[in-house]
């Protein structure tokens, strides 16, 4: 947990936003965009966390990820085979998304693009570690555990990164979501399909 910003009091508005962002992440996790052949599914649960990180900063981003991760654990939508695996796969992987702004370059949509890629890759590191440590035993004989974890995680995480990054960049680009804009754009979106 971020000890760097110790005892910094968080504004009520940001507390409420983090709570809502975590709930949004949970809800979007329920909406399966695409089912992968081997069982994983692609959904957009990382989008609200990245959104918080970009609009409110790294610390609120980290907290949103942390709450979203714990929420997954508490509501038992998760697969747990070991306490440490749960911490890596659910808590740390989603918290790590919050550092997206630190991993971004440039300005405007370029910043969002690089940051979103960086943040999702930071999350991937924890899934990879969990796979390496706890699921390595399932690797077929002759395959090193790290390679198994890398390929297994990449098969579902890579499409997830692409989709998440795409959606985040479009959302931020639309500018609809900057809370300062208030109500002006609530009819955004081109629902005509």
């Amino acid at each position, binding site marked *: 947990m971020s000890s760097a910003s110790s005892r910094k*009091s968080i504004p009520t508005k940001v*507390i409420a936003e983090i709570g809502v962002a975590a709930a949004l992440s949970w809800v979007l996790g329920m909406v399966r965009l695409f089912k992968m052949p081997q069982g994983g599914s692609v959904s957009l649960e990382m989008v609200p966390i990245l959104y918080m990180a970009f609009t409110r900063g790294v610390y609120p981003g980290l907290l949103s990820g942390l709450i979203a991760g714990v929420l997954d654990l508490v509501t038992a939508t998760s697969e747990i085979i070991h306490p440490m695996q749960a911490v890596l796969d659910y808590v740390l992987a989603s918290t790590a998304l919050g550092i997206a702004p630190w991993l971004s370059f440039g300005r405007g949509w370029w910043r969002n693009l690089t940051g979103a890629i960086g943040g999702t890759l930071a999350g991937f590191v924890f899934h990879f570690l969990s796979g390496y440590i706890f699921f390595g035993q399932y690797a077929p004989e002759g395959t090193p555990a790290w390679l198994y974890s890398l390929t297994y995680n990449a098969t579902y995480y890579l499409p997830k990164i692409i989709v998440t990054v795409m959606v985040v960049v479009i959302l931020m680009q639309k500018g609809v979501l900057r809370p300062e804009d208030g109500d002006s754009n609530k009819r955004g979106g081109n629902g005509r399909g």
Partner: protein
Amino acid sequence: MNFANAAVGQYMPGESLMHRLDPRTKMLVSLGIIIVLFVVSNPLAYALLAVPIVLAIAISGVPVKLVFRSLRPLTFIMVLTFVLHLFMDPGEALFSIGRITATDQGLRLGIVTVVRLTLLVLATSIVTMTTSPIAFTDGLERLLAPFARLGLPAHELAMMMTIALRFIPTLLEETDKIMKAQMARGADFESGNIAKRAKAMIPILVPLFVSAFRRADELAVAMEARCYRGGEGRTRLRELAFSGEDLAVLIVAGAYTVAVAVAL
């Protein structure tokens, strides 16, 4: 597009001892049991650790069928682990199918892993099934309170958790409504490649985000209008009370768990 299991958490209201216990007691005891589960590897120890879990399920009055339903998401992984252990581990041959051979060591390790996972899931499920999410976050806040000195925003974290839990049903409904509205206008979420589907989500996400963050804004105003100013000095309608029952359970269960860990 489907909402997999829209029921948030698995809380089953009730009046049993398990329900009455302070969430902190339940969390600490189940955490202790889980830690010991991963420390020991002796079949007898698992049998002994199963006793408090079975006892807790029995007195909770939660239908056994519902408790065991929580194992379902893990069925695949358990079967896989069991089979892999059975055929991959060294040891004396039991039987063989073609070129692969099942070993006695594999059978033993396979059973141990499956039992360990089962107990882990049962121990956590029985706690979440008898503790309301709000009581759970309250307990979490109190357990984390000592770390507040080190800069951990324990109260704020609990508040965010509570808000998130409160908003999940609202936002689920909202998402459903927006999706139906867009579908009525001809939106198509079910076809096309992955990029196309992601793009199709934008008309859902924009109104969803706007309305969700507007709700957050209104909530913050409402909180401040009621003089919310963080954790210090805040009072509660329902205080967590650590009763004699809690102390007794904590001591008995704690001593039992430690004894199992030490003896085996």
